[in-house]
C-alpha cells in the first residue's frame, strides 16, 4: 500500500487551487474505502434483499418459476384465512410476554445479591453466565428435551417426593413453558449488564437514605430502580427482539413441527416451514414483513414511552 504523505500544510483547510475531485479524494475517499466491505454488504445483503422481499410479499413465488403478482392476497389470507398464522402469533407473544420479564427479574435479583460486596463474586458471576453462553446450542435443546421428557430428569426428582409428573414436552399445556424455562435459565448476560449498571450507582446515596431511615425496599424502589431504568430499558429491548427471533430450541424440541398441537409453533418456525418446507416464498416474505412491522412497532413504542419512565441523569 502506497504511503500517502500529508504535510502539516495539507491539514489546514481549503488549499486554494485543488479541484473538487481531489478534495473529495483527500477528504472522503479514505472513509469510504474503509467502509467499502460494509457498504457492499449493506446494499447487497440488507437493503437490496429488503426491497426484494417486500416485492416478493405481494407475489406467489415457489423458487422455480418466476414470481407472480397477487397484490395484497398474501396479507389478506394471513389475516382472514390462516389459523396457523394466528396460532404462531399467539405462541410467540405468549413466549415474549412471559420469558422476557421473568428472565429480567431473575437477572436483576441475582445481580443485586451479587452486588452486596460478597466474596467469590467472580466465581458466581461466571457460573451464572455459563448457561447464557452455552444456551443457544443445539446440544442444550437436546438436553432440554430429555430433562422434560416423561422419564426425564425433572420427573425423576418429582418422583422422589411421590409426584408423578406429566411428559412436559409432549403435553400442549406445558410444552411452551419448558421453552420459557430454557430462556430464563439463560439470564446470565442481562445479569452482567445489570451488575455493571448497579456498580454505577453511587454508594453514598444509599448511606444518605438509610440515615433518613428508609427501608431496604424503599431504597430499592426510590434509588436502585430509577437509576437503573436505562439499563432495564436496554436489556428489555435486546431480550425482546431476541425472543421474537428465537428459533433453534423450538425447532429441536419439537423436531421441526411446532407440536404438540402447534403449542410451540413459534412465528419464526412457521415462517421457516412456509419458506423451506412448502416453498411458499411469497407468503413467507409477507410473514417476514409482518414480523418486521411488529418488532418495529414494539421498538418505536418503547422509545416513545421511554421518556416517561427511563431516568437519564443529564
Amino acid at each position, binding site marked *: 500500500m502506497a504511503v500517502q504523505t500529508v504535510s502539516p500544510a495539507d491539514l489546514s483547510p481549503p488549499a486554494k487551487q485543488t479541484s473538487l475531485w481531489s478534495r473529495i479524494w483527500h477528504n472522503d475517499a479514505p472513509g469510504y474505502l474503509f467502509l467499502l466491505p460494509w457498504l457492499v454488504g449493506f446494499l447487497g445483503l440488507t437493503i437490496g*434483499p429488503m426491497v426484494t422481499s417486500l416485492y416478493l410479499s405481494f407475489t406467489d413465488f415457489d423458487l422455480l418459476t418466476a414470481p407472480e403478482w397477487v397484490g395484497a392476497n398474501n396479507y389478506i389470507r394471513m389475516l382472514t384465512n390462516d389459523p396457523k398464522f394466528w396460532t404462531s402469533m399467539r405462541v410467540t407473544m405468549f413466549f415474549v410476554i412471559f420469558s422476557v420479564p421473568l428472565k429480567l427479574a431473575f437477572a436483576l435479583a441475582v445481580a443485586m445479591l451479587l452486588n452486596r460486596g460478597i466474596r467469590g463474586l467472580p466465581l458466581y*458471576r461466571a457460573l451464572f453466565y455459563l448457561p447464557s453462553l452455552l444456551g443457544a446450542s443445539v446440544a442444550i435443546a437436546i438436553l432440554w428435551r430429555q430433562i422434560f421428557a416423561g422419564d426425564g430428569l425433572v420427573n425423576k426428582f418429582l418422583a422422589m417426593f411421590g409426584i408423578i409428573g406429566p411428559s412436559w414436552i409432549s403435553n400442549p399445556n406445558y410444552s411452551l413453558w419448558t421453552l420459557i424455562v430454557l430462556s430464563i435459565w439463560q439470564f446470565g448476560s442481562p445479569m452482567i449488564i445489570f451488575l455493571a449498571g448497579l456498580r454505577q450507582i453511587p454508594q453514598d446515596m444509599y448511606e444518605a437514605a438509610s440515615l433518613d431511615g428508609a427501608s431496604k425496599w424503599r431504597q430499592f424502589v426510590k434509588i436502585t430502580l430509577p437509576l437503573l431504568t436505562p439499563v432495564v430499558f436496554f436489556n428489555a429491548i435486546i431480550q425482546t427482539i431476541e425472543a421474537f427471533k428465537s428459533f433453534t430450541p423450538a425447532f429441536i424440541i419439537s423436531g421441526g413441527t411446532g407440536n404438540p398441537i402447534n403449542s410451540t409453533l413459534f412465528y419464526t418456525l412457521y415462517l421457516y416451514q412456509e419458506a423451506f418446507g412448502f416453498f411458499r416464498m411469497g407468503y413467507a416474505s409477507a410473514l417476514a414483513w409482518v414480523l418486521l412491522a411488529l418488532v418495529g412497532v414494539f421498538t418505536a413504542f418503547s422509545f416513545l414511552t421511554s421518556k416517561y419512565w427511563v431516568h437519564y441523569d443529564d
Partner: protein
Amino acid sequence: MTDAPAGLTVVNGSVSPARKRITTILIHAALLGASILMLYPLLWMLAASFRPENEIFTSASIIPSSWSIDSYIRGWNGLRTSFGVFFTNSFIISILSVCGNVLACSMAAFAFARLQFRGRNFWFAMMLMTLMLPYQVTLIPQYVLFRQLGWVNTFLPLVVPKFLAADGFFIFLMVQFFRGLPKELDEAAQMDGCSPWRIYWKIVMPLSLPVLATAAIFTFIWTWDDFFGPLIYLSEMRQYTVMLGLRTFTDSTGTSDYGGLFAMSVLSLVPIFLFFLFFQRLLIEGIATTGMKR
C-alpha cells in the same frame, strides 16, 4: 464498620455484625443453591455421556456408578459420515468467520470512529438500524441470490457475509472502543505522514487487541452455535456442521442411542467451554461495556 458492641443494633439503620454475618451466610447459601440447580442439567448430561447405555435413564445422579467411553465411540460414528467431518467443517466455517468479522468490522468501525467524511453519520445511523432488523426480512432474497450464484451447498453463504461486516453488533462494539483511544495518536501519526491505512493497521489495531479478541471469541461461539444458516444452506451430509450433525442424530436414531447423542452433544460444547474457561473475563467485560448506555 462501626465499633458497636456485638449483638446491639446500631442506630443509623446499620445492623450488628452478628446479623450481618447471618445475612452473608444466607446469601451464599442462596447463590450456591441457585448455581447447583442451574448447572445440574449440564453435569447430568456430562455424567450420562460416560454411563453405560443401560444406565442412562435409570439415574438422576451426576456421578456414574461405572465409567465408560463407549458412547463417545458409538456417537462419533453414529451417522453415515463421522463426526470428525462435522467438527472439521464447523472449525473451518468458524475460523473463516472470525477472520472476516475482525477484519471487515474493524475497518468499518475505524471509518466511523476515526475518519471524517461526508455521510458518516447517515451511514452510522443505517448501521445501527440493521442491529434491530430481524434476519427473516432479508432471508429469502439472500437465499435466492446465493442460489443463483451457485453457492448453496457450499460454505460461502455462511462465510462471505462476515467479510462484508454483516454483523453490525461487532462494528458497534469496536466503534465504542476505538472512540476511547486518544485522538492525539492519529494526529501525530498524520503529521508524520502516515496514511489512514497505516494508522489503522499500525496504531489502532495493535492498541485494540482486547476488543478484537472479544469480537473474535463471540464470532467463533456464535458461528459454532449457528443452526439456522447451515440448516438452510447445507443439505449434503459431508458438509454438515456439528449442530446439523446433532440434529440429524436426534432425527435418525429416534430413541435408540441416547448415549451417543449425549456424548456428541457434550463434545460440541467443549470448544465453547474452553473459551469460557480461558477468556471469561474478556467475555464478561465485553457484555458489560456494550450494555452500558454511553
